[in-house]
Protein backbone atom coordinates (compact mmCIF):
# COMPACT_ATOMS: atom_id res chain seq x y z
CA UNK A 1 0.00 0.00 0.00
CA UNK A 2 2.74 2.41 1.05
CA UNK A 3 4.65 1.52 -2.12
CA UNK A 4 1.63 2.37 -4.24
CA UNK A 5 1.26 5.73 -2.54
CA UNK A 6 4.98 6.35 -3.01
CA UNK A 7 4.74 5.39 -6.69
CA UNK A 8 1.78 7.74 -7.11
CA UNK A 9 3.72 10.53 -5.41
CA UNK A 10 6.74 9.85 -7.61
CA UNK A 11 4.54 10.03 -10.70
CA UNK A 12 3.21 13.39 -9.51
CA UNK A 13 6.71 14.71 -8.86
CA UNK A 14 7.93 13.49 -12.25
CA UNK A 15 5.00 15.14 -13.98
CA UNK A 16 5.53 18.45 -12.21
CA UNK A 17 9.27 18.38 -12.88
CA UNK A 18 8.59 17.58 -16.53
CA UNK A 19 6.32 20.64 -16.77
CA UNK A 20 9.06 22.70 -15.14
CA UNK A 21 11.70 21.41 -17.54
CA UNK A 22 9.50 22.08 -20.56
CA UNK A 23 8.86 25.64 -19.31
CA UNK A 24 12.57 26.31 -18.88
CA UNK A 25 13.16 24.73 -22.25
CA UNK A 26 10.62 27.07 -23.85
CA UNK A 27 12.22 30.09 -22.17
CA UNK A 28 15.61 28.96 -23.49
CA UNK A 29 14.25 28.60 -27.01
CA UNK A 30 12.34 31.86 -27.16
CA UNK A 31 14.82 33.92 -25.12
CA UNK A 32 17.27 36.13 -26.97
CA UNK A 33 17.01 37.95 -30.25
CA UNK A 34 17.54 35.80 -33.35
CA UNK A 35 19.94 37.07 -36.01
CA UNK A 36 17.87 37.55 -39.20
CA UNK A 37 20.82 36.69 -41.47
CA UNK A 38 21.21 33.20 -40.03
CA UNK A 39 17.72 32.71 -38.59
CA UNK A 40 15.67 33.45 -41.73
CA UNK A 41 17.11 30.70 -43.98
CA UNK A 42 16.75 28.18 -41.14
CA UNK A 43 13.14 29.24 -40.61
CA UNK A 44 12.35 28.95 -44.33
CA UNK A 45 13.82 25.45 -44.44
CA UNK A 46 11.68 24.38 -41.50
CA UNK A 47 8.56 26.08 -42.89
CA UNK A 48 9.03 23.92 -45.96
CA UNK A 49 9.54 20.73 -43.91
CA UNK A 50 6.75 21.39 -41.42
CA UNK A 51 4.28 23.35 -43.52
CA UNK A 52 4.64 22.64 -47.23
CA UNK A 53 5.23 18.92 -46.79
CA UNK A 54 2.11 18.68 -44.60
CA UNK A 55 -0.03 20.15 -47.39
CA UNK A 56 -0.97 16.89 -49.18
CA UNK A 57 -2.47 15.27 -46.07
CA UNK A 58 -4.22 18.50 -45.08
CA UNK A 59 -5.70 19.09 -48.53
CA UNK A 60 -6.89 15.50 -49.03
CA UNK A 61 -8.34 15.29 -45.51
CA UNK A 62 -10.02 18.68 -45.86
CA UNK A 63 -11.59 17.64 -49.14
CA UNK A 64 -13.01 14.40 -47.79
CA UNK A 65 -14.23 15.91 -44.54
CA UNK A 66 -16.02 18.67 -46.45
CA UNK A 67 -17.60 16.09 -48.74
CA UNK A 68 -18.73 13.92 -45.82
CA UNK A 69 -20.15 16.95 -44.01
CA UNK A 70 -22.19 17.82 -47.09
CA UNK A 71 -23.57 14.29 -47.39
CA UNK A 72 -24.43 14.01 -43.70
CA UNK A 73 -25.79 17.54 -43.54
CA UNK A 74 -27.96 16.98 -46.61
CA UNK A 75 -29.39 13.74 -45.17
CA UNK A 76 -30.36 15.45 -41.91
CA UNK A 77 -31.42 18.85 -43.25
CA UNK A 78 -33.49 17.48 -46.14
CA UNK A 79 -35.82 15.85 -43.59
CA UNK A 80 -36.79 19.37 -42.56
CA UNK A 81 -36.74 20.74 -46.07
CA UNK A 82 -33.85 23.01 -45.23
CA UNK A 83 -31.08 21.46 -47.29
CA UNK A 84 -30.21 24.91 -48.59
CA UNK A 85 -28.61 25.55 -45.19
CA UNK A 86 -25.80 23.03 -45.73
CA UNK A 87 -23.50 25.84 -46.91
CA UNK A 88 -23.61 27.59 -43.56
CA UNK A 89 -23.52 24.28 -41.68
CA UNK A 90 -20.35 23.14 -43.47
CA UNK A 91 -18.65 26.52 -43.18
CA UNK A 92 -19.43 27.01 -39.48
CA UNK A 93 -18.44 23.46 -38.57
CA UNK A 94 -15.16 23.74 -40.43
CA UNK A 95 -14.15 27.26 -39.50
CA UNK A 96 -15.07 27.00 -35.83
CA UNK A 97 -14.21 23.40 -35.01
CA UNK A 98 -13.06 20.85 -37.52
CA UNK A 99 -10.58 23.09 -39.34
CA UNK A 100 -8.39 23.88 -36.31
CA UNK A 101 -8.93 20.58 -34.48
CA UNK A 102 -8.50 18.08 -37.31
CA UNK A 103 -5.60 20.07 -38.78
CA UNK A 104 -3.91 20.05 -35.36
CA UNK A 105 -4.42 16.30 -34.99
CA UNK A 106 -3.05 15.66 -38.48
CA UNK A 107 -0.24 18.14 -37.85
CA UNK A 108 0.74 16.31 -34.65
CA UNK A 109 0.78 13.00 -36.50
CA UNK A 110 2.67 14.19 -39.59
CA UNK A 111 4.89 17.11 -38.60
CA UNK A 112 5.01 16.71 -34.80
CA UNK A 113 6.20 13.11 -34.87
CA UNK A 114 8.77 13.98 -37.55
CA UNK A 115 10.10 16.87 -35.43
CA UNK A 116 10.41 14.65 -32.36
CA UNK A 117 12.13 11.85 -34.25
CA UNK A 118 14.51 14.24 -35.99
CA UNK A 119 15.59 16.08 -32.84
CA UNK A 120 15.72 12.81 -30.88
CA UNK A 121 17.95 11.24 -33.49
CA UNK A 122 20.18 14.31 -33.52
CA UNK A 123 20.51 13.87 -29.77
CA UNK A 124 21.21 10.13 -30.04
CA UNK A 125 23.90 10.67 -32.68
CA UNK A 126 25.53 13.38 -30.53
CA UNK A 127 24.85 16.09 -33.12
CA UNK A 128 23.31 18.33 -30.47
CA UNK A 129 26.26 17.72 -28.13
CA UNK A 130 28.75 18.46 -30.87
CA UNK A 131 26.92 21.70 -31.62
CA UNK A 132 27.14 22.67 -27.94
CA UNK A 133 30.85 21.89 -27.93
CA UNK A 134 31.30 24.13 -30.99
CA UNK A 135 29.84 27.00 -28.99
CA UNK A 136 26.49 26.88 -30.80
CA UNK A 137 23.34 26.70 -28.69
CA UNK A 138 21.15 23.91 -30.14
CA UNK A 139 18.07 25.47 -28.57
CA UNK A 140 18.50 28.52 -30.78
CA UNK A 141 19.97 26.80 -33.82
CA UNK A 142 17.91 23.60 -34.02
CA UNK A 143 14.83 23.97 -31.85
CA UNK A 144 13.84 27.64 -32.26
CA UNK A 145 13.39 27.57 -36.08
CA UNK A 146 11.28 24.44 -35.80
CA UNK A 147 9.10 25.91 -33.07
CA UNK A 148 8.49 29.12 -34.98
CA UNK A 149 7.85 27.19 -38.19
CA UNK A 150 5.14 25.10 -36.51
CA UNK A 151 3.68 28.20 -34.91
CA UNK A 152 3.41 29.94 -38.29
CA UNK A 153 2.47 26.95 -40.43
CA UNK A 154 -0.40 25.59 -38.32
CA UNK A 155 -2.87 28.52 -38.72
CA UNK A 156 -2.14 28.65 -42.46
CA UNK A 157 -2.73 24.91 -42.78
CA UNK A 158 -5.96 25.18 -40.78
CA UNK A 159 -7.18 27.96 -43.09
CA UNK A 160 -6.32 25.88 -46.16
CA UNK A 161 -8.10 22.89 -44.60
CA UNK A 162 -11.28 24.91 -44.08
CA UNK A 163 -11.22 26.40 -47.58
CA UNK A 164 -10.69 23.02 -49.23
CA UNK A 165 -13.37 21.50 -46.97
CA UNK A 166 -15.92 24.11 -48.02
CA UNK A 167 -15.02 23.51 -51.64
CA UNK A 168 -15.40 19.74 -51.15
CA UNK A 169 -18.78 20.37 -49.49
CA UNK A 170 -19.85 22.43 -52.49
CA UNK A 171 -18.82 19.66 -54.88
CA UNK A 172 -21.10 17.20 -53.13
CA UNK A 173 -23.88 19.55 -52.03
CA UNK A 174 -24.26 21.65 -55.18
CA UNK A 175 -22.82 19.61 -58.03
CA UNK A 176 -23.96 16.17 -56.90
CA UNK A 177 -26.99 16.57 -54.63
CA UNK A 178 -28.36 19.59 -56.45
CA UNK A 179 -28.60 22.22 -53.71
CA UNK A 180 -29.08 25.65 -55.28
CA UNK A 181 -25.67 27.32 -55.54
CA UNK A 182 -27.01 30.77 -54.66
CA UNK A 183 -28.48 29.52 -51.36
CA UNK A 184 -25.31 27.54 -50.60
CA UNK A 185 -23.03 30.60 -50.80
CA UNK A 186 -25.64 33.17 -49.74
CA UNK A 187 -26.55 31.40 -46.47
CA UNK A 188 -22.87 30.93 -45.76
CA UNK A 189 -22.07 34.61 -46.27
CA UNK A 190 -24.95 35.80 -44.14
CA UNK A 191 -24.27 33.49 -41.22
CA UNK A 192 -20.47 33.28 -40.96
CA UNK A 193 -19.12 36.22 -38.98
CA UNK A 194 -15.50 37.23 -39.51
CA UNK A 195 -14.67 38.00 -35.88
CA UNK A 196 -16.87 35.45 -34.08
CA UNK A 197 -16.20 32.53 -36.38
CA UNK A 198 -13.18 33.01 -38.63
CA UNK A 199 -11.01 34.91 -36.16
CA UNK A 200 -11.92 32.66 -33.23
CA UNK A 201 -11.08 29.64 -35.36
CA UNK A 202 -7.74 31.23 -36.22
CA UNK A 203 -7.04 31.86 -32.54
CA UNK A 204 -7.69 28.19 -31.86
CA UNK A 205 -5.32 27.08 -34.60
CA UNK A 206 -2.60 29.45 -33.34
CA UNK A 207 -2.92 27.97 -29.83
CA UNK A 208 -2.98 24.39 -31.15
CA UNK A 209 0.02 25.05 -33.41
CA UNK A 210 2.01 26.44 -30.50
CA UNK A 211 1.12 23.58 -28.15
CA UNK A 212 1.66 20.80 -30.70
CA UNK A 213 5.04 22.11 -31.81
CA UNK A 214 6.16 22.81 -28.26
CA UNK A 215 5.30 19.24 -27.23
CA UNK A 216 7.01 17.84 -30.34
CA UNK A 217 10.31 19.70 -29.98
CA UNK A 218 10.42 19.22 -26.21
CA UNK A 219 9.81 15.47 -26.46
CA UNK A 220 12.61 15.20 -29.03
CA UNK A 221 15.03 17.25 -26.97
CA UNK A 222 14.21 15.51 -23.69
CA UNK A 223 14.07 11.93 -25.00
CA UNK A 224 16.27 9.09 -23.83
CA UNK A 225 18.83 8.93 -26.67
CA UNK A 226 18.23 5.32 -27.68
CA UNK A 227 16.00 3.79 -30.37
CA UNK A 228 13.45 2.79 -27.71
CA UNK A 229 13.62 6.28 -26.20
CA UNK A 230 12.99 7.98 -29.55
CA UNK A 231 10.13 5.62 -30.32
CA UNK A 232 8.55 6.35 -26.94
CA UNK A 233 9.04 10.12 -27.37
CA UNK A 234 7.41 10.05 -30.81
CA UNK A 235 4.41 8.18 -29.43
CA UNK A 236 4.17 10.64 -26.54
CA UNK A 237 4.21 13.55 -28.97
CA UNK A 238 1.19 12.25 -30.86
CA UNK A 239 -0.72 11.20 -27.73
CA UNK A 240 -0.02 14.32 -25.65
CA UNK A 241 -0.63 16.65 -28.59
CA UNK A 242 -3.95 15.01 -29.44
CA UNK A 243 -5.14 15.13 -25.84
CA UNK A 244 -3.94 18.70 -25.40
CA UNK A 245 -5.70 19.79 -28.60
CA UNK A 246 -9.00 18.18 -27.66
CA UNK A 247 -8.86 19.45 -24.08
CA UNK A 248 -7.88 22.95 -25.09
CA UNK A 249 -10.54 22.94 -27.78
CA UNK A 250 -13.21 22.47 -25.13
CA UNK A 251 -11.74 25.24 -22.97
CA UNK A 252 -11.40 27.66 -25.89
CA UNK A 253 -14.87 26.85 -27.21
CA UNK A 254 -16.33 27.45 -23.76
CA UNK A 255 -14.56 30.80 -23.56
CA UNK A 256 -15.43 31.87 -27.11
CA UNK A 257 -18.93 30.54 -27.57
CA UNK A 258 -20.10 29.65 -24.06
CA UNK A 259 -21.55 33.06 -23.28
CA UNK A 260 -25.22 32.02 -23.12
Amino acid sequence: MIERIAAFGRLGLDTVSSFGRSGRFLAGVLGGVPRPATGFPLLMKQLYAVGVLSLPIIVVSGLFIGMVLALQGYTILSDYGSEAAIGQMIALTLVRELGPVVTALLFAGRAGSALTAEIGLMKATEQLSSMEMMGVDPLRRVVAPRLWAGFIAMPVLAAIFSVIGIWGGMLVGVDWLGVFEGSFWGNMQSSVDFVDDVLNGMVKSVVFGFVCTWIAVYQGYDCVPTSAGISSATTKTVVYSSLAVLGLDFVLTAVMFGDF
Partner: protein
Amino acid sequence: MDSSAYISLEDVVFSRSGRRIFDGVSLEIPRGKITAIMGPSGTGKTTLLRLIGGQLRPDSGRVVVDGHEVPKLRRKALYAFREKMGMLFQSGALFTDLSVFENVAFPLRVHTRLPEDMIRDIVLMKLEAVGLRGARHLMPSELSGGMTRRVALARSIALDPELILYDEPFAGQDPIAMGVLVKLIRDLNSSMGLTSVLVSHDVPESLSICHYACIIADGRVIGEGSPEQLREHPSGQVQQFLQGQPDGPVPFHYPAEGAARDFGLSGGVS
Protein backbone atom coordinates in the same frame (compact mmCIF):
# COMPACT_ATOMS: atom_id res chain seq x y z
CA MET B 1 55.24 16.72 -15.41
CA ASP B 2 54.97 20.15 -17.02
CA SER B 3 54.31 22.77 -14.39
CA SER B 4 51.94 24.83 -16.58
CA ALA B 5 48.76 22.78 -16.41
CA TYR B 6 46.18 23.73 -19.04
CA ILE B 7 43.42 21.77 -17.34
CA SER B 8 43.25 20.99 -13.68
CA LEU B 9 40.66 18.93 -11.84
CA GLU B 10 40.67 19.24 -8.07
CA ASP B 11 38.88 16.72 -5.94
CA VAL B 12 36.03 16.31 -8.44
CA VAL B 13 33.02 14.36 -7.23
CA PHE B 14 30.29 13.49 -9.72
CA SER B 15 27.26 11.23 -9.43
CA ARG B 16 24.57 10.28 -11.90
CA SER B 17 21.33 8.41 -11.25
CA GLY B 18 22.45 7.79 -7.68
CA ARG B 19 25.73 6.21 -8.82
CA ARG B 20 29.04 7.80 -7.84
CA ILE B 21 31.10 8.10 -11.05
CA PHE B 22 34.00 10.16 -9.69
CA ASP B 23 34.93 10.09 -6.06
CA GLY B 24 37.49 12.84 -5.58
CA VAL B 25 39.41 12.82 -8.87
CA SER B 26 42.36 15.21 -9.04
CA LEU B 27 44.31 15.54 -12.26
CA GLU B 28 46.49 18.04 -14.08
CA ILE B 29 46.69 18.04 -17.86
CA PRO B 30 49.79 19.78 -19.26
CA ARG B 31 49.65 22.51 -21.89
CA GLY B 32 50.70 21.66 -25.45
CA LYS B 33 50.98 17.91 -24.82
CA ILE B 34 48.92 14.82 -25.61
CA THR B 35 47.40 13.37 -22.45
CA ALA B 36 45.72 9.99 -22.59
CA ILE B 37 42.99 9.16 -20.11
CA MET B 38 42.46 5.44 -20.07
CA GLY B 39 40.34 3.06 -18.12
CA PRO B 40 37.88 0.21 -18.46
CA SER B 41 34.51 0.77 -20.14
CA GLY B 42 31.96 2.50 -17.96
CA THR B 43 34.43 4.27 -15.68
CA GLY B 44 33.31 7.70 -16.83
CA LYS B 45 36.05 8.68 -19.26
CA THR B 46 33.57 10.40 -21.57
CA THR B 47 31.94 11.97 -18.52
CA LEU B 48 35.32 13.47 -17.69
CA LEU B 49 35.47 15.10 -21.13
CA ARG B 50 31.96 16.46 -20.65
CA LEU B 51 32.99 17.93 -17.29
CA ILE B 52 35.96 19.63 -18.97
CA GLY B 53 33.71 20.94 -21.75
CA GLY B 54 31.13 22.21 -19.27
CA GLN B 55 28.32 19.95 -20.52
CA LEU B 56 28.12 18.47 -17.04
CA ARG B 57 28.73 20.07 -13.66
CA PRO B 58 30.47 18.27 -10.81
CA ASP B 59 28.71 17.78 -7.48
CA SER B 60 31.77 19.25 -5.82
CA GLY B 61 35.37 20.08 -6.68
CA ARG B 62 36.87 22.41 -9.27
CA VAL B 63 37.36 22.04 -13.02
CA VAL B 64 39.72 24.75 -14.25
CA VAL B 65 40.55 25.09 -17.94
CA ASP B 66 43.05 27.76 -18.99
CA GLY B 67 42.29 29.75 -15.85
CA HIS B 68 38.50 29.55 -16.22
CA GLU B 69 36.52 27.67 -13.64
CA VAL B 70 34.21 25.93 -16.11
CA PRO B 71 31.23 25.00 -13.86
CA LYS B 72 30.91 28.62 -12.76
CA LEU B 73 30.81 30.09 -16.28
CA ARG B 74 27.48 31.55 -17.27
CA ARG B 75 25.78 30.23 -20.38
CA LYS B 76 27.02 32.93 -22.75
CA ALA B 77 30.56 32.86 -21.41
CA LEU B 78 30.57 29.06 -21.60
CA TYR B 79 29.59 29.09 -25.28
CA ALA B 80 32.26 31.72 -26.00
CA PHE B 81 34.80 29.63 -24.09
CA ARG B 82 33.96 26.55 -26.15
CA GLU B 83 35.01 28.32 -29.33
CA LYS B 84 38.61 27.71 -28.18
CA MET B 85 37.91 24.04 -27.85
CA GLY B 86 37.35 21.22 -30.35
CA MET B 87 35.89 17.85 -29.58
CA LEU B 88 35.99 14.69 -31.63
CA PHE B 89 33.02 12.54 -30.70
CA GLN B 90 33.12 8.77 -30.80
CA SER B 91 30.44 8.65 -33.49
CA GLY B 92 31.89 11.64 -35.36
CA ALA B 93 28.57 13.44 -34.80
CA LEU B 94 28.56 14.95 -38.29
CA PHE B 95 25.42 16.85 -39.26
CA THR B 96 23.68 14.33 -41.49
CA ASP B 97 21.85 16.95 -43.57
CA LEU B 98 25.07 18.75 -44.54
CA SER B 99 27.81 17.67 -46.95
CA VAL B 100 31.39 17.08 -45.81
CA PHE B 101 32.33 20.58 -46.96
CA GLU B 102 29.41 22.22 -45.15
CA ASN B 103 30.10 20.24 -41.98
CA VAL B 104 33.64 21.62 -41.81
CA ALA B 105 32.43 25.08 -42.81
CA PHE B 106 29.73 25.08 -40.11
CA PRO B 107 31.78 26.53 -37.20
CA LEU B 108 33.33 29.10 -39.53
CA ARG B 109 29.96 30.26 -40.81
CA VAL B 110 28.51 30.48 -37.30
CA HIS B 111 31.41 32.13 -35.49
CA THR B 112 33.11 34.26 -38.13
CA ARG B 113 32.10 36.72 -40.80
CA LEU B 114 34.70 35.59 -43.29
CA PRO B 115 33.97 35.96 -47.00
CA GLU B 116 32.86 32.84 -48.83
CA ASP B 117 36.11 32.37 -50.80
CA MET B 118 38.14 32.47 -47.59
CA ILE B 119 35.83 29.96 -45.91
CA ARG B 120 36.30 27.70 -48.94
CA ASP B 121 40.09 27.94 -48.69
CA ILE B 122 40.12 27.22 -44.95
CA VAL B 123 37.76 24.26 -45.31
CA LEU B 124 39.85 22.78 -48.13
CA MET B 125 43.03 23.26 -46.06
CA LYS B 126 41.50 21.47 -43.09
CA LEU B 127 40.21 18.66 -45.29
CA GLU B 128 43.65 18.43 -46.93
CA ALA B 129 45.18 18.02 -43.47
CA VAL B 130 43.04 14.92 -42.88
CA GLY B 131 43.47 13.68 -46.45
CA LEU B 132 39.87 14.14 -47.53
CA ARG B 133 39.94 17.20 -49.77
CA GLY B 134 38.61 15.03 -52.58
CA ALA B 135 35.63 13.87 -50.49
CA ARG B 136 34.20 17.34 -49.90
CA HIS B 137 31.06 16.74 -51.96
CA LEU B 138 30.11 13.52 -50.20
CA MET B 139 27.33 13.29 -47.63
CA PRO B 140 28.04 11.76 -44.18
CA SER B 141 26.00 8.65 -45.09
CA GLU B 142 28.51 7.95 -47.91
CA LEU B 143 31.55 7.89 -45.61
CA SER B 144 33.20 4.96 -43.88
CA GLY B 145 33.64 5.05 -40.08
CA GLY B 146 37.27 6.12 -40.36
CA MET B 147 36.48 8.85 -42.90
CA THR B 148 33.65 10.12 -40.70
CA ARG B 149 36.07 10.61 -37.83
CA ARG B 150 38.59 12.34 -40.08
CA VAL B 151 35.94 14.78 -41.31
CA ALA B 152 34.85 15.35 -37.71
CA LEU B 153 38.50 16.01 -36.85
CA ALA B 154 38.76 18.54 -39.69
CA ARG B 155 35.61 20.21 -38.36
CA SER B 156 36.92 20.33 -34.80
CA ILE B 157 40.11 22.12 -35.93
CA ALA B 158 38.29 24.52 -38.25
CA LEU B 159 38.55 27.40 -35.78
CA ASP B 160 42.15 26.56 -34.80
CA PRO B 161 41.32 25.63 -31.20
CA GLU B 162 43.77 25.56 -28.29
CA LEU B 163 42.39 22.32 -26.94
CA ILE B 164 41.07 19.17 -28.58
CA LEU B 165 39.19 16.50 -26.69
CA TYR B 166 39.17 13.10 -28.40
CA ASP B 167 36.46 10.71 -27.24
CA GLU B 168 37.49 7.12 -28.06
CA PRO B 169 39.00 8.02 -31.44
CA PHE B 170 40.23 4.50 -32.17
CA ALA B 171 37.15 2.52 -31.12
CA GLY B 172 35.88 0.21 -33.86
CA GLN B 173 38.47 1.25 -36.45
CA ASP B 174 40.32 -1.06 -38.82
CA PRO B 175 44.14 -1.10 -38.52
CA ILE B 176 44.68 1.31 -41.43
CA ALA B 177 42.09 3.82 -40.19
CA MET B 178 43.58 3.52 -36.70
CA GLY B 179 47.08 4.20 -38.06
CA VAL B 180 45.78 7.24 -39.93
CA LEU B 181 44.12 8.61 -36.80
CA VAL B 182 47.22 8.03 -34.67
CA LYS B 183 49.30 9.91 -37.23
CA LEU B 184 46.77 12.75 -37.49
CA ILE B 185 46.50 13.23 -33.74
CA ARG B 186 50.27 13.29 -33.37
CA ASP B 187 50.84 15.60 -36.36
CA LEU B 188 48.08 18.02 -35.40
CA ASN B 189 49.40 18.29 -31.88
CA SER B 190 52.94 19.06 -32.97
CA SER B 191 52.08 21.35 -35.90
CA MET B 192 49.36 23.40 -34.18
CA GLY B 193 50.76 23.34 -30.63
CA LEU B 194 47.46 22.01 -29.32
CA THR B 195 46.71 20.60 -25.93
CA SER B 196 45.13 17.23 -26.62
CA VAL B 197 43.15 15.06 -24.25
CA LEU B 198 42.63 11.57 -25.51
CA VAL B 199 40.11 9.28 -23.88
CA SER B 200 40.56 5.69 -24.92
CA HIS B 201 40.91 2.11 -23.85
CA ASP B 202 43.15 1.20 -26.77
CA VAL B 203 46.33 0.92 -24.74
CA PRO B 204 49.10 0.45 -27.37
CA GLU B 205 47.84 3.23 -29.66
CA SER B 206 47.27 5.67 -26.81
CA LEU B 207 50.62 5.03 -25.15
CA SER B 208 52.40 5.29 -28.50
CA ILE B 209 51.40 8.93 -29.00
CA CYS B 210 50.76 10.40 -25.57
CA HIS B 211 53.26 12.36 -23.50
CA TYR B 212 51.37 11.74 -20.31
CA ALA B 213 48.72 9.22 -19.32
CA CYS B 214 46.44 8.44 -16.45
CA ILE B 215 44.25 5.46 -15.72
CA ILE B 216 40.88 5.86 -14.07
CA ALA B 217 38.99 3.04 -12.42
CA ASP B 218 36.39 2.83 -9.67
CA GLY B 219 35.85 6.58 -9.63
CA ARG B 220 39.46 7.57 -8.98
CA VAL B 221 42.85 7.85 -10.64
CA ILE B 222 44.71 4.58 -10.05
CA GLY B 223 47.90 5.46 -11.92
CA GLU B 224 49.44 8.38 -13.83
CA GLY B 225 52.72 9.39 -15.39
CA SER B 226 54.61 9.11 -18.64
CA PRO B 227 53.99 5.94 -20.71
CA GLU B 228 57.31 4.53 -19.41
CA GLN B 229 56.38 5.26 -15.81
CA LEU B 230 53.00 3.60 -16.27
CA ARG B 231 54.52 0.47 -17.77
CA GLU B 232 56.64 0.18 -14.60
CA HIS B 233 53.76 1.07 -12.28
CA PRO B 234 53.63 -1.14 -9.15
CA SER B 235 49.81 -1.36 -9.00
CA GLY B 236 48.45 -4.75 -9.99
CA GLN B 237 45.25 -3.16 -11.29
CA VAL B 238 47.24 -0.84 -13.61
CA GLN B 239 49.28 -3.73 -14.93
CA GLN B 240 46.16 -5.86 -15.44
CA PHE B 241 44.59 -3.09 -17.51
CA LEU B 242 47.72 -2.32 -19.54
CA GLN B 243 48.39 -5.96 -20.34
CA GLY B 244 44.75 -6.92 -20.81
CA GLN B 245 44.81 -9.82 -18.36
CA PRO B 246 41.38 -11.44 -17.95
CA ASP B 247 41.72 -12.04 -14.22
CA GLY B 248 43.48 -10.18 -11.45
CA PRO B 249 42.55 -7.37 -9.06
CA VAL B 250 39.54 -6.87 -11.34
CA PRO B 251 38.03 -10.38 -11.07
CA PHE B 252 36.83 -12.37 -14.06
CA HIS B 253 33.71 -13.44 -12.17
CA TYR B 254 30.94 -11.06 -11.30
CA PRO B 255 30.27 -11.43 -7.56
CA ALA B 256 27.91 -14.38 -7.00
CA GLU B 257 26.90 -16.77 -4.27
CA GLY B 258 28.74 -20.08 -3.97
CA ALA B 259 28.81 -22.21 -7.13
CA ALA B 260 28.00 -25.37 -5.15
CA ARG B 261 24.77 -23.88 -3.93
CA ASP B 262 23.81 -22.50 -7.36
CA PHE B 263 24.44 -25.83 -9.09
CA GLY B 264 22.76 -27.79 -6.31
CA LEU B 265 25.91 -29.73 -5.37
CA SER B 266 26.43 -30.94 -1.85
CA GLY B 267 30.22 -30.45 -1.81
CA GLY B 268 33.44 -30.66 -3.70
CA VAL B 269 32.96 -27.47 -5.75
CA SER B 270 34.06 -24.17 -4.27
